[in-house]
């Protein structure tokens, strides 16, 4: 039997509202997902029953908070199948995680070294590397993946003995394409490069196994996987985390401090300066528990069926450029020639349909596609087939209203 989103939609109270008199149709899930009751309750519970600073010990509440905080690290570690919980570093999101790596590896880079990314990256997995290249004299190179994410045998030439860092997204946020991750990681590893995978768009949909992937670093944000904002994860293999120079210093990350010198703490604390986002950590663990309790494959299949339904309906209409793949993705990214995506967005909004219009923080990819921006409808487990159809209906109305006769 097909998955029925109503089985969990009631866990998302925010969805039961109207927007300008229309039922709210939330299809901007790639930007951020809504949060289920177990996550909301975990946040409440934290402040109601065990709010205290962590690792400072010495009293009842602090012990409880510290225990739950470290339990959360275990929950997240097992969520991505990390071998040890000390490999999970809390950050404020994917962006901070990538910056932690980019700044942390700076001391190892030399002029002429190469940093390789793909042409499907979000600015978060591009600008930190570009700036690192500027600072060190390294060269930023871009593997030109097609919008279908196809692998060409000649791409292996992008991996050279100067490739020190290879950073790639697992799934494009702008067009939903999965990258040929495993083969790229294999080539990068053969050259001895550090490898980083941006899983921001993957974690909500796919079970993640960092050991099978074999990357040195894996990063993601909590808010895109039903967790709170302001919390994210940097997973790393021990040797990879060990070489990172902490880019922030201060309390919690030290063992001993004198005016002459500081001895840094062990991992994971060494990379977590200051009081952490405790509520975020608690909420993220609740989000992992929420997802782990679901039939992940059923959810994914459902989300993909919504996207491919929209794809085929709009494809049949004609006159709509669709950039996302026909199948195997959870979003639809499109544009309509001679109509600005912001205008389409404005009409969809007036009908209570929330999508995203713009360049999706991927200017070079938009240039590759030859568009200024796209309109993106992205699905989550709570979206219904009625919502997918409503998006299509309202989009077609918008095109009608905005076409110059």
């Amino acid at each position, binding site marked *: 039997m097909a998955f029925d989103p109503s089985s969990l939609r009631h866990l998302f109270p925010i969805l039961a509202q109207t927007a300008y008199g229309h039922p709210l149709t939330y299809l901007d899930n790639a930007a951020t997902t809504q949060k289920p009751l177990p996550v909301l309750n975990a946040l409440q519970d934290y402040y109601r029953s065990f709010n205290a600073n962590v690792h400072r010990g010495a009293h009842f509440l602090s012990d409880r908070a510290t225990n739950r905080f470290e339990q959360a690290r275990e929950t997240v570690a097992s969520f991505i199948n990390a071998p040890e919980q000390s490999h999970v570093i809390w950050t404020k999101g994917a962006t901070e995680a990538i910056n932690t790596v980019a700044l942390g590896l700076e001391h190892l880079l030399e002029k002429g070294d190469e940093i390789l990314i793909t042409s499907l990256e979000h600015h978060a997995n591009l600008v930190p590397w570009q700036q690192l290249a500027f600072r060190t004299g390294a060269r930023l190179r871009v593997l030109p993946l097609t919008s279908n994410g196809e692998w060409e045998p000649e791409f292996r030439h992008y991996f050279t003995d100067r490739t020190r860092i290879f950073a790639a997204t697992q799934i494009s946020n702008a067009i939903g394409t999965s990258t040929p991750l495993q083969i790229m990681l294999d080539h990068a590893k053969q050259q001895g490069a550090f490898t980083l995978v941006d899983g921001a768009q993957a974690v909500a949909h796919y079970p993640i196994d960092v050991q099978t992937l074999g990357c040195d670093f894996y990063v993601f944000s909590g808010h895109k996987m039903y967790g709170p904002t302001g919390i994210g994860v940097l997973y790393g293999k021990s040797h990879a985390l060990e070489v990172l120079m902490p880019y922030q210093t201060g309390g919690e990350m030290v063992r001993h401090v004198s005016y002459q010198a500081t001895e840094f703490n062990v991992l994971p604390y060494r990379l977590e300066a200051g009081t952490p986002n405790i509520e975020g950590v608690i909420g993220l663990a609740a989000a992992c528990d929420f997802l782990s309790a679901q039939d992940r494959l059923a959810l994914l299949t459902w989300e993909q069926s919504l996207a491919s339904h929209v794809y085929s309906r709009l494809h049949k209409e004609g006159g709509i450029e669709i950039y996302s793949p026909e199948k195997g993705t959870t979003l639809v990214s499109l544009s309509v020639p001679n109509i600005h995506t*912001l205008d389409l967005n*404005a*009409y969809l*909004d007036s009908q209570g349909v929330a999508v995203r219009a713009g360049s999706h923080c991927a200017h070079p990819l938009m240039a590759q596609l030859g568009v*200024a921006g796209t309109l993106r409808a992205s699905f989550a487990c709570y979206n219904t087939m009625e919502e997918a159809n409503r998006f299509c209906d309202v989009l077609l109305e918008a095109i009608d209203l905005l076409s110059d006769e």
Partner: protein
Amino acid sequence: MTDTLSIKAQLQTCRSKEETFKTLVTLSKTLPRLTAEEKTEDNKIKGCESAVWLIIEESHGIRHFKADSDAKLMRGVLVAILSLVEGKTLTDIQQMDLKAELAELNLSSYLTSSRTNGVLAILGKIASN
């Protein structure tokens, strides 16, 4: 002719987002388009997600405006904005509360200072020395 009064009236009587949308589409059709030569980088407003060009000409202390955008609703918004300031002196314009006037026209959602908002930049240029 869509004079200022009727532009105001059309927008003020909108009861919903949808009506405002449709009115802006209608208004957008009244905006004379700029030529390719007029759409220079200098005339482009920074900070808009849609491209917006604004040209100010002044003669005998009176300001005249020409504007364009690649987005239709923005062209409608430009029609509304320009109807408020066209033919006025800089001093007159600087004494106006343009934000409040646009809010009265149900256009306040274009005024939120989000990261992508360029209408505030347009208002800034209109009233600049």
